[in-house]
């Protein structure tokens, strides 16, 4: 596509688009997390009866996906653009398609499809129904109607839209290698910004992260979270941050290959218990728990 958006213009365009539709534009959460869904603006705010419309970019870290900067499609650190609309408006599909149009996708020549993809996060005790959205066979977004979070029914149901920004940008710019992406439209590439980071972080994640200390960090985060939840007046927001930490540390341990299959289930269970505890406290401190 000629005159296609630079990476940063893609983000700015999506922000403008959703701001115009009443969304609060947030900045990224200042913690490592595996996906934009973990952001408290989605996980916790999806619960309860209040209206909530927000959009934000969230750097997402998947330590096991690191490839030392050598794979053109896989990164251990990448960006998701996340929109959460509660209640999901009746025309949410049209609004979503409008956002694709805004970033330059032409529906006369491109094949957009909504392909079944239900979402379930055992870690968050959450599930929803929806699709992965295909553009010419490529998954460009996840589209989910949240039904439950933390084991609670979503009343009302929130719609969550997650755009994989690098993929979308590669598609729009017609680029085969993520590091070749035009970042700012003035000569800076994605590689200029992130290649070294991918190389070093991959080496850290796979080779050098000190597993003894990580195991201790996991326990510390778990203990801190539990302490905050056990207070007479529980503090779900800071507790939830400790839960996010524990989850990321678990991903790091996983990348280091020190977690056996059996232990895996046990660790996931521990993070789930923390997440569930935070949702419980969030519901009860807001007076929404049944």
């Amino acid at each position, binding site marked *: 596509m000629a005159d296609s958006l630079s990476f940063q213009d893609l983000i700015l365009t999506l922000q403008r688009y959703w701001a115009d539709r009443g969304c609060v534009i947030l900045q990224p959460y200042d913690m490592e997390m595996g996906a934009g869904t973990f952001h408290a603006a989605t996980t916790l705010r999806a619960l309860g*009866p209040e209206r909530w419309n927000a959009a934000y970019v969230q750097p997402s870290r998947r330590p096991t996906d690191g490839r030392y900067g050598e*794979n*053109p*499609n*896989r990164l251990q650190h990448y960006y998701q653009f996340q929109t959460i609309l509660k*209640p*999901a*408006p*009746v025309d949410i*599909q049209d609004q979503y398609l409008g956002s694709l149009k805004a970033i330059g996708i*032409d*529906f*006369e*020549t*491109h*094949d*957009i*499809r*909504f*392909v*079944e993809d*239900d979402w379930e996060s055992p870690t968050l005790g959450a599930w*929803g*129904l*929806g*699709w992965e959205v295909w*553009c*010419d*066979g*490529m998954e460009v977004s996840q589209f989910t*109607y949240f*039904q439950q979070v933390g084991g609670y*029914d*979503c*009343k*009302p*149901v929130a719609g969550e839209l997650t755009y994989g920004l690098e993929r979308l940008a590669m*598609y729009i710019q017609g680029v*085969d290698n993520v590091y070749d992406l035009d970042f700012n439209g003035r000569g800076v590439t994605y590689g200029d910004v992130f290649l070294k980071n991918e190389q070093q972080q991959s080496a850290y994640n796979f080779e050098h992260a000190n597993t003894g200390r990580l195991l201790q960090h996991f326990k510390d985060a778990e203990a801190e979270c539990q302490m905050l939840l056990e207070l007479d007046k529980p503090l779900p927001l800071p507790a939830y941050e400790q839960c996010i930490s524990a989850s990321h540390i678990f991903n790091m341990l996983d990348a280091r290959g020190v977690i*056996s*299959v*059996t*232990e895996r*289930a*046990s660790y996931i269970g521990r993070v789930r218990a923390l997440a569930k505890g935070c949702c419980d406290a969030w519901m009860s401190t807001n007076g929404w728990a049944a």
Partner: protein
Amino acid sequence: MAELLLELFSEEIPARMQSKACDDLKRLTQKALKDAQLGFETMEAYATPRRLALHIIGLPTAQADVREERRGPKADAPEKAIAGFLGSVGLTRDQVEEREDKKGTFLYAVIEKKGAPTADVLSAIFPDIIRSFPWPKSMRWGPASQSTESLRWVRPLQSILCLFDGNVVPFEVNSLASSDETRGHRFHAPEAIKVNGFGDYLKKLSEAYVILDPLKRMEQIVKEANAQTMIGKVIIVRDDALVAENAGLTEWPTVLMGRFDEAFLDVPDEVLTATMRTNQKYFSLRDPNTGNLTNKFLCVANLQASDGGKAILAGNEKVLSARLSDAKFFWEQDLKTPLEEMAAKLKDVTFHEKLGTVAEKVDRVAKLAKWLGAEYGIGEPGLNYQAAKLAKADLVSAMVTEFPSVQGVMGSYYAEKQGLDVAVVNAIKEHYAPQGPNDDCPTNGVSVAVALADKIDTLVGFFAIDEKPTGSKDPYALRRAGLGIIRLILENGLRFKLGELLSFVRVEVFETLSEQVSRAAESSVEQLRPQDSDKAVRFEVTTIKGNRPSLTTGNPALQYSDDIKGLIDFIADRLKVQQREQGVPHDLIDAVFALGSEDDLVRLIARVSALQSFLKTDHGANLLAGYKRAANILRIEEKKDGKAFDGAVDEALLGDTQEHALFVALVSSNELLAKALEMEDFEAAMRALAQLRGPVDAFFDYVTVNAEDAAIRENRLTLLNQIRAAVHKVADFSKIEG
């Protein structure tokens, strides 16, 4: 007579759910119409990704009127009785008739109920059908989802079109009102379209780039695919499920042919195909001359693109290229790791919480496969062992983690690259087979040994922890494993006593179980529930040590423990199902199993088939009748005397000619029978039995079994007992029906 059209227009319905949704919509509507006493001529349902439509022809415009008469009390009955009657029918005294019969003059109420207009009935039934529609998964949405009681649908339901006889059938479902409007293709024709009937609906939809009928969309895909393959000089591998899936993803399918870099053809075909099919829903294409995969593929778009599909193809090619790069990367990574090294990682993979790790399963299977080679000459012990040890190694490979469907296949490629024996390579690939009644069954010895060992281990393991299939639930596919065992045995003519084999593997399984239990006791993380570990321990103490069967037993009667008998019964049931499909009645199999001495399946089926032919002959049918008569008499007399007549026949007491003739025939028949059975010549065994038919018939015609003389009576009963015993050497005829 009039026509109904209902359309439920929604956001995208998963492809896999569309066909059942059509069936459900028809079924529920049929039932509701029947309850409302409304008939119709034809009913058809259609689905696209965005709509579910129902078309009924020949519905009456109203229900039939109903006229009911009720007799009341006599005209001169007490006022109270009359008032009660009038109250019950809701009429006044002057609205009821008086009629005279022999017994007097009675009051009659004639109640005429006008049939309701069909449109009113439909307005009432559709909201119920929509609210209770059985989607496999459904959801709430929109502002209404504030309540968990709000309408659920597979994805948000956007509009309802309902026309009967050209008019809108008015109803509302959770504030969604029916109308005469729909929409066309999401991008080609998004505006509202008004329709006045089914013909108009079909026509306007097709003008709006929607082919309503899924079969027509499938035809369209096949037609365009064939046209493309003609141009590309390639052939398409027939894949009806993939055609159907693509038809479920499109309202206006357009087929395009793309290419990928030939360098990817180094990756095994199965991986290329899985990448294209599973991830992208593409059709892979082959060279008509060589049969090899080509670097071309077909994709199905849902658009008549203004650039002829150029951009769509470019995008799809790019996606595929990225996917294939990943696959190639996995393939190359996997090749760096020897299978033995992968196999070592199976100790971290749980097979089942109570049955230990995959590594433990592999060890059991390897032992059993080796034993099958040594004991029964299936395959070769060393190769069986090696193949079994490596058969599941690819489960930890990057490729199988990404594409589970290529398990086994990948392992065989890796084994081949490592230069392993071709028998081992094949066994790794084939050991999951057969997976159903119709796929290929392994025939190479090593493959057969590993495939059989794997399935038997699975079956015995899950039975040992009491995870047997019940009703429609069979989460571990044990019925399929059972069928696989049967097919491997019968199609390869494997000769052994099934119970012995099961006993051998059971011992192995229980070792895993007891280890699992002790490990669970040490571990603080994940404990087995106490009752489970109790059970496993009990197994270990009482069954393993106490009951290891002698494997060289030649005893006619089987001496297996109850759990082995349970397994044999399960396999017998599977065998009946499998044989029924080949026209063998289940009672004949029961008749042979009931002998209690036959668990060599090959011999068992040979017996059954000889028996089946025999029973079709005149001799067979008559002997069966004679046998039943003898068995009946014996049952009654044995009960009367409280004893069995299992002594020897006293020749001196045989008086009548027919009685003596039967004895002579029995002696000769028994001799022939013994020889025939020893030779496993079951046709000859049947011929030996056939000799009894005439003498048995004559015996019953001329001889009275219950003679006055007690000794003669007992001798005759003893003779009948021996007849029964002779027949039972072939099969328990009492189990045969008819």
